[in-house]
């Protein structure tokens, strides 16, 4: 019976090539977008080199100072003063590291203008994040203390500054009219790791201006590494307790709020967080809504095409009913046919996704991007195919099965 359905499905697809193209295009295009987007999300949110411990990390991304009536607000990253005097005293994390936000500046090797990213960090940065050193090593405590002009640079920076395959350790790089000695080269961090991607990593003591003052806000992000993911709530609680003890020297601010968030929450709080909530649930709801709408469009399109195809096939429906097909059997047949169409669209979508992902990975539009379709993404895509097939097929199939036999037989006469 399925062979017969399959033959019919293929014949129907061949018969109306334009409709078939529209249907397949709708399904495959939507799936391609979904697959590529989920691959992006995967890259953004999953643990990846060198941030391999993300499941047991929390991030202090920002501090917010407000007054009680909410009319005055100041928001920013943590200051060195705040990290050094308060956060560093925390007991529950296994380790914590402080590093600056990335800043972009220019270097001029051989009179070429080169845009480079800088990041200042402490020693623990090299423990918390598992960098792969291709040459040399990170700066040590002495170099940090003495604010020595030393840097760790990325492999990409070596290529851009010195040329491909040239040993860099011991050489100098000049940035902002200052010369730094290269003491280590690390495998480049993908730019999708927003907090830690950089071309040059410097000891934070070289950013002398950030070390002064008693302002709570500054330019540092803190990563708290727990012994295990089970410890994360305890760390969050300790951080909240800690905040209560922080004096607020700022004249206009009497409320200090900040959160030790998981990686995803550290982003969602900024955009979607409301009155203490991390915005994570809103984010998932928003994503689900967008995906739903995105899936709905080709589904409705396919449903519409299917309904119009019913009249074309009414003679066949009449014949099948006359010779013993029940309404339920016909619904089954039509759903199988629709599933064949959607699975075909899914396969095309998958191939297109592989192609687009490969182009994106190799194009360099996003530096060091390594998108891939993993098993989870594949499963979700196949599930999306099934949902497509079922939703777009059920209503037309039901309408088809309800056709009166005599009317159906007359329709094509």
């Amino acid at each position, binding site marked *: 019976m399925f062979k017969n359905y399959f*033959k019919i499905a293929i014949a129907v697809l061949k018969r109306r090539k334009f409709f078939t193209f529209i249907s397949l295009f709708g399904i495959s295009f939507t799936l391609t977008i979904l697959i590529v987007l989920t691959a992006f999300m995967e890259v953004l949110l999953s643990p990846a080199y060198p941030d391999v411990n993300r499941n047991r990390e929390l991030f202090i991304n920002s501090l917010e100072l407000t007054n009680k009536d909410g009319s005055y607000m100041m928001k920013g990253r943590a200051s060195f003063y705040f990290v050094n005097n308060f956060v560093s005293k925390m007991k529950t994390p296994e380790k914590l590291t402080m590093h600056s936000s990335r800043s972009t500046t220019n270097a001029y090797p051989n009179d070429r203008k080169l845009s480079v990213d800088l990041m200042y960090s402490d020693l623990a940065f090299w423990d918390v994040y598992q960098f792969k050193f291709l040459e040399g090593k990170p700066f040590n405590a002495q170099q940090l203390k003495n604010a020595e002009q030393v840097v760790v640079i990325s492999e990409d920076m070596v290529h851009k500054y010195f040329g491909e395959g040239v040993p860099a350790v011991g050489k100098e790089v000049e940035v902002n009219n200052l010369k730094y000695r290269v003491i280590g080269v690390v495998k480049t961090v993908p730019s999708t790791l927003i907090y830690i991607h950089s071309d040059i990593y410097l000891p934070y003591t070289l950013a002398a201006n950030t070390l002064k003052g008693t302002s709570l806000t500054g330019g540092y992000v803190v990563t708290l590494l727990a012994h295990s993911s089970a410890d994360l709530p305890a760390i969050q609680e300790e951080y909240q307790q800690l905040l209560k003890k922080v004096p607020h020297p700022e004249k206009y601010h009497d409320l200090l709020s900040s959160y030790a968030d998981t990686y995803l929450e550290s982003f969602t709080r900024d955009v979607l967080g409301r009155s203490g909530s991390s915005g994570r649930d809103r984010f998932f709801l928003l994503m689900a809504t967008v995906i739903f709408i995105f899936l709905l469009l080709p589904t409705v399109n396919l449903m519409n095409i299917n309904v119009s195809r019913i009249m074309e096939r009414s003679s066949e429906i009449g014949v099948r009913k006359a*010779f013993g097909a029940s309404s339920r059997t016909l619904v089954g047949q039509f759903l199988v046919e629709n599933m064949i169409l959607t699975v075909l669209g899914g396969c095309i979508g998958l191939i297109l996704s592989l192609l687009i992902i490969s182009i994106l990975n190799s194009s360099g539009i996003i530096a060091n991007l390594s998108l891939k379709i993993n098993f989870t993404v594949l499963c979700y895509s196949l599930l999306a195919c099934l949902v497509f097939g079922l939703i777009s097929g059920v209503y037309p199939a039901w309408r088809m099965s309800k056709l009166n036999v005599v009317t159906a*037989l007359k329709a094509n006469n």
Partner: protein
Amino acid sequence: MIQLKNIEKVYRTDTVETQALNNINLRVAKGEFLSIMGPSGCGKSTLLNIMGLLDAPSKGDILIDAQQTLSLNDRKLANFRNSKIGFIFQSYHLINDLQVVDNVELPLLYRNSSAKERRMLATEALEKVGLSNRIHHFPTQLSGGQKQRVAIARAIVGRPEIILADEPTGNLDSAMGNEIMNILLELNRVEGTTIVMVTHDPNMAQRTHRLLRLFDGSQVQ
């Protein structure tokens, strides 16, 4: 075999009510070949559709093999049609996307029969109508007479006790029409299949056991 009691069929729209069949009482015996004649629009096809359980009467009862059929649900009705009745239509109603043999197999798809068995029975049915050399052709590659023979093969493949034929020779020239008629007569004679045939052709009707005439939805003899 088939018994129609006080059958009425009324088509209603918002403004018009049309009496298509009026108080039809009919018995068709097992193994009988009955033809139905009458002018266009007199209700012949409607009567045949009601007999074949493709359409429901507005009033009356239909008994097939002494079984009440109007109370059957969709699934049972489908099974009943599948096992008892074969249809032949004036315009063949073959599925152009399927090969001849797949078209003939169609009624067997809705039974518990294996693919091998279906293929065997379909090939046998095609041999009976003299089309065993066309099994892998598509309907569009056949002449009108050949299409109707495929339709007959499809009607008989499940070995139904009843065949209902709605103007089976209506679209064919007289030579082809005669060929089809011969096949139907042979089926009736050799297999004992009960046949009810709607026709406009008195010559064809003359060759059947009995003739029922309809006029404006009523039996006239």
